């Protein structure tokens, strides 16, 4: 009886959280299936539902009736919000590569999170089930929480209702058809675009409902959206992009697996295997390798490499080659002289903390541009190499030899080797599946830092005892070798980052670079011409991984240690933003983007006007960039030129805000 009860307990637990996942994943899957939009902000809509419910309950309706009213009103409110988001931000991006949706929705995440914090504050707020649903209930001698049963029941009802809408109504019919073949639906005379708003609203409604229901168990807090978005993506991938049934099976499955792995830890050869968190990602990676369309997906429905081109900043600069080189040299000179100005125009912080941070991110962004801007591989998990580089640095210095140089070399090697392995597996799949699988690997590594806490020290990270030296070049410890406030480490970073750029540029000028570009423009064509595109992509990935590993190693030295946050998925998002902000496909563009990002963040944080809500403002900046300047900062001069000539030249035609992705990609790197 004991074992059966505990198993039943865990099953109910799994189904409870699984139902919430179903609601979340169903909306996400339908949105992707029909609209080809990867909605990172789905978690925020989920959280917004919970907050709206909190607001409703806070009115005179109170906790009892308020809860039931909230279940109806809040999802409707979020549906409206979702519709507005679609109409004003997503719609301008249709036809573009899904990467831009990721970017846009990533910016929306920042905006929503800050907006929530602005209105309700950063603290978690109490929100509980109504008195009628509190407490336990005993059925046939088996006791469990009444609210859990409620969640399962109402979640199931809601899923059933959604299913009926999709299968029994005309709206549902069009949605399902659009999910299979959008073009055909258009040819049949149905304006599917106008349905998109409704689809987005529908998905938002489901997510909001899930948010309210979950909040009843754990209260509301601004991070609740971030916590569920990755599991939601995993479920959508497992179940199949665009498949409602897949979302249901995936959601319940993941919920149960998560709960069971938390409780039951099998032992193999005397070692207890803590699989919590790992199983889910291993499943996702496995599914992507074996059956990319997911358990219930249909490969015909969705072309993973469909969508528009990746818009690079290459060739769109007005600046001449020589002028650009001149600017580069000037920038390098400025960086070399900067520390001398400490105390005169600025303090040590701006140079030794801010500039170093910017340069390290620039190196990270450079590594990403290598694969994304040139080979066209959108890696959502690039933080994997960065984080591993950082851990390599920390572990080498604390356990083997305290030399920073040796550890950096190891970090590069580890980054490259892991990139080879991950690349070998991931490059088999393309487009959005590739992005998902890289995300899966990064999350796996993130989880492993907790699981292998014997090595990584888990949550605490590796900080004490981490004191690298300059051996064998000098006996001093990093941080001790300085003349007044001019730190030797600053110059180490400048030299390594500038050197990496030059190495990367050299690689790109070689035939290797041209082949990569041709792969980005049209992989099929490149294959027909006779190139082994897989091998080239893999090589690019290895170089990229090495560079990212170097960045991670430097970051660990800079921050005095490493902790699991170095592998947090948000960092992958940030570096993608930097790359696009600067203008990918140029090598120097993303580095510039990194500098601007770090600088902007600093300015916003310290400005009295923005202060606390700087992330939201940053989000607004990204959203504007993605919609209006997708080719990045390096393309701004060309954009201005184009706008000016259009105003001077052809009178009638008003240039729409849509970017010129139809135009043939300009040739050549810089």
């Amino acid at each position, binding site marked *: 009886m004991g074992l059966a009860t505990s198993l039943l307990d*865990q099953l109910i*637990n799994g189904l409870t959280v699984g139902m919430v996942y179903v609601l979340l994943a169903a909306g996400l899957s339908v949105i992707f299936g029909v609209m080809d939009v990867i909605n990172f902000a789905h978690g925020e809509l989920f959280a917004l539902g919970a907050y709206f419910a909190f607001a409703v309950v806070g009115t005179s309706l109170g906790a009892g009736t308020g809860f039931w009213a909230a279940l109806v009103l809040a999802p409707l409110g979020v549906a409206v919000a979702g519709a507005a988001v679609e109409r004003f931000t997503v719609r301008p991006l249709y036809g573009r590569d899904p990467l831009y949706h990721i970017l846009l929705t990533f910016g929306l995440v920042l905006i929503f999170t800050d907006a929530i914090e602005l209105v309700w504050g950063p603290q978690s707020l109490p929100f509980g089930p109504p008195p009628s649903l509190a407490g336990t209930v005993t059925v046939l001698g088996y006791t469990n929480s009444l609210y859990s049963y409620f969640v399962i029941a109402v979640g199931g009802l809601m899923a059933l209702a959604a299913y009926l809408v999709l299968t029994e109504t005309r709206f549902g019919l069009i949605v399902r058809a659009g999910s299979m073949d959008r073009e055909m639906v258009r040819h049949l005379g149905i304006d599917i675009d106008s349905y998109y708003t409704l689809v987005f609203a529908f998905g938002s409604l489901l997510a909001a409902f899930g948010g309210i229901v979950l909040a009843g168990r754990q209260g509301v807090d601004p991070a609740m959206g971030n916590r569920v978005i990755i599991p939601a993506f995993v479920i959508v991938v497992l179940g199949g992009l665009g498949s409602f049934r897949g979302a249901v099976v995936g959601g319940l499955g993941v919920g149960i697996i998560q709960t069971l792995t938390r409780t039951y830890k099998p032992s193999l050869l005397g070692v207890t295997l803590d699989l919590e968190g790992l199983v889910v990602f291993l499943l996702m990676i496995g599914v992507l390798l074996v059956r990319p369309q997911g358990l219930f997906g249909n490969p015909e429905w969705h072309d993973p490499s469909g969508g528009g081109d990746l818009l690079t900043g290459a060739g769109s600069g007005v600046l001449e080659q020589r002028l650009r080189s001149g600017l580069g040299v000037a920038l390098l000179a400025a960086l070399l002289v900067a520390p001398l100005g400490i*105390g005169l125009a600025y303090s040590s912080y701006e140079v030794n903390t801010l500039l170093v941070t910017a340069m390290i991110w620039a190196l990270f962004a450079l590594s990403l541009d290598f694969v994304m801007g040139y080979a066209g591989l959108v890696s959502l998990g690039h933080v994997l190499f960065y984080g591993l580089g950082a851990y390599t640095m920390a572990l080498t210095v604390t356990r083997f030899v305290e030399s920073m140089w040796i550890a950096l070399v190891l970090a590069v090697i580890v980054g490259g080797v892991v990139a080879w392995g991950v690349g070998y597996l991931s490059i088999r799949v393309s487009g959005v599946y590739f992005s998902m699988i890289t995300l899966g690997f990064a999350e796996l590594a993130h989880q492993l830092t907790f699981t292998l806490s014997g090595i990584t020290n888990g949550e605490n990270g590796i900080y004490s005892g981490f004191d690298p030296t300059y051996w064998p070049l000098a006996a001093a410890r990093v941080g001790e070798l300085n003349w007044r406030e001019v730190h030797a480490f600053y110059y180490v970073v400048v030299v390594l980052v500038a050197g990496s750029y030059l190495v990367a540029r050299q690689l790109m000028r070689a035939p290797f670079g041209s082949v990569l570009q041709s792969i980005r423009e049209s992989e099929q064509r490149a294959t027909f011409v006779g190139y082994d595109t897989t091998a080239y992509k893999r090589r690019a990935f290895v170089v990229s991984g090495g560079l990212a590993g170097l960045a991670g190693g430097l970051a660990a030295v800079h921050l005095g240690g490493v902790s699991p946050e170095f592998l947090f998925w948000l960092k992958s998002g940030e570096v993608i933003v930097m790359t696009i902000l600067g203008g990918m496909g140029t090598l120097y563009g993303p580095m510039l983007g990194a500098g601007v990002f770090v600088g902007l963040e600093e300015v916003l944080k310290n400005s009295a006007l923005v202060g606390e809500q700087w992330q939201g403002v940053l989000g607004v900046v990204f959203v504007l960039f993605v919609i209006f300047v997708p080719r990045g900062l390096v393309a701004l001069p060309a954009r201005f030129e184009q706008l000016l000539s259009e105003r001077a030249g052809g009178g009638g035609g008003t240039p729409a805000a849509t970017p010129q992705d139809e135009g043939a990609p300009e040739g050549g790197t810089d």
Partner: protein
Amino acid sequence: MPENHGQETSDERRIDRRRVLKTAGAGTLAGVSGLAGCLEGLGGGTTATEGGGGGTITYGVLNPISGAYKGLGPGQRNGSKLAIKQLQNDDDFEYDIEAVYKDTGTSSETATQVATEAVDKDGANFLVGAISSSVAGALNGFAQENEVIYNPGGAAVPLTGEQCNEWVFRAETNTAQIAEAVAGYTVNNLGSNVWFHIANYAYGTSVLDRTEARMKQESADYSRAGLTKSKLGASNYDSYISEISNSDADVVVLGMTGGDLITFVKQAVSKGLNEEVTLVSPTMTFAVVLGALGADAYGTYGGVRYIPSLSTGDNPSFVEAYKDEFDGAVPDNFARVGYQSIMMTAKGVQEAGSVDPATVKDTLPGMEMSTIFGTNQFRECDHQAMNPTWMGKIVEPDSGDVGTVETVTKLSGEEALSNLPCSETGCSM
């Protein structure tokens, strides 16, 4: 005009050259002397922390205002703010004191970054704060490297144990001191088959180690019913609650704090666990926790590091001053730590006669002073403040629904540290 142009031009040119050389010479002299002045400040010149004289204390107040501990951060910050204000207005305190405030998140990475900002940019020579012991641990290392004094707000023993260093002085009560109060009472009065559930990080591990060790010593009947660990910041504890419910544990000791503890207890009560076992947590009595749990907390037990109703030492006047400053709000443990850290360190500055952290760090250890808890000191061997501790029971209040803490045992400063003698801390400075 054109005919004379050539000659005039060459004359002009010659004159110009001479004039140029003259002015160049004078200019260079002026330039060099000016440059010499610049060179003085080049590359940063003298750093803020060097330099003697009267001196200013710049306290870097680093609190978690976002992240998993954001509910606890503001209290800590307010306590520090009050201390700074009181010291500024205190005529007997001979030094200037000011503060800069930073948000650590609940992230070691952010914490070290903002600490760097405080020290490098704002000239901080003292640091106080953090609540997560993982974050505090990172700052311990930072303080040592940058030679500034740091008062951690984390409670895990290693902060003044294996990770100790001469720059770190802790006013917060550590898990061993609390375990002393909690362990004995629990195993003797509440049940001897104990399940431990902890958040898997420095603090949680410390609670497990200390409390279990103490319980084993206190009672031969002690047995561990089970151990489960969750991730810091987790939000779903159902599976653990079910496991505990299906075991034969009498008592559950929860090694977590803040949002984690609140969510766990809520979910446990929702599943009826509190009717099967007694819930005990060293941090159950925190104001934030009690406020969030309401009636769910009745009947649970907790360790007490501080409650405003204490009548020890300066506490009554501290509570009054806090209420005046913050619109009637009552200080919690974290406010107490934010306040006590700065006040005790300031007394060290006064005694040392210098704001230089290098001097103060040698004066503070073992120095007796009067504090909120009465006569107190940072123990010489590990710099841990010798705070008293209590065991408390949460009962239904006379009015409202936030539980009231009833203390059931008290241990003095010496008693609380009796099980952590200098030889066993693992600290070597």
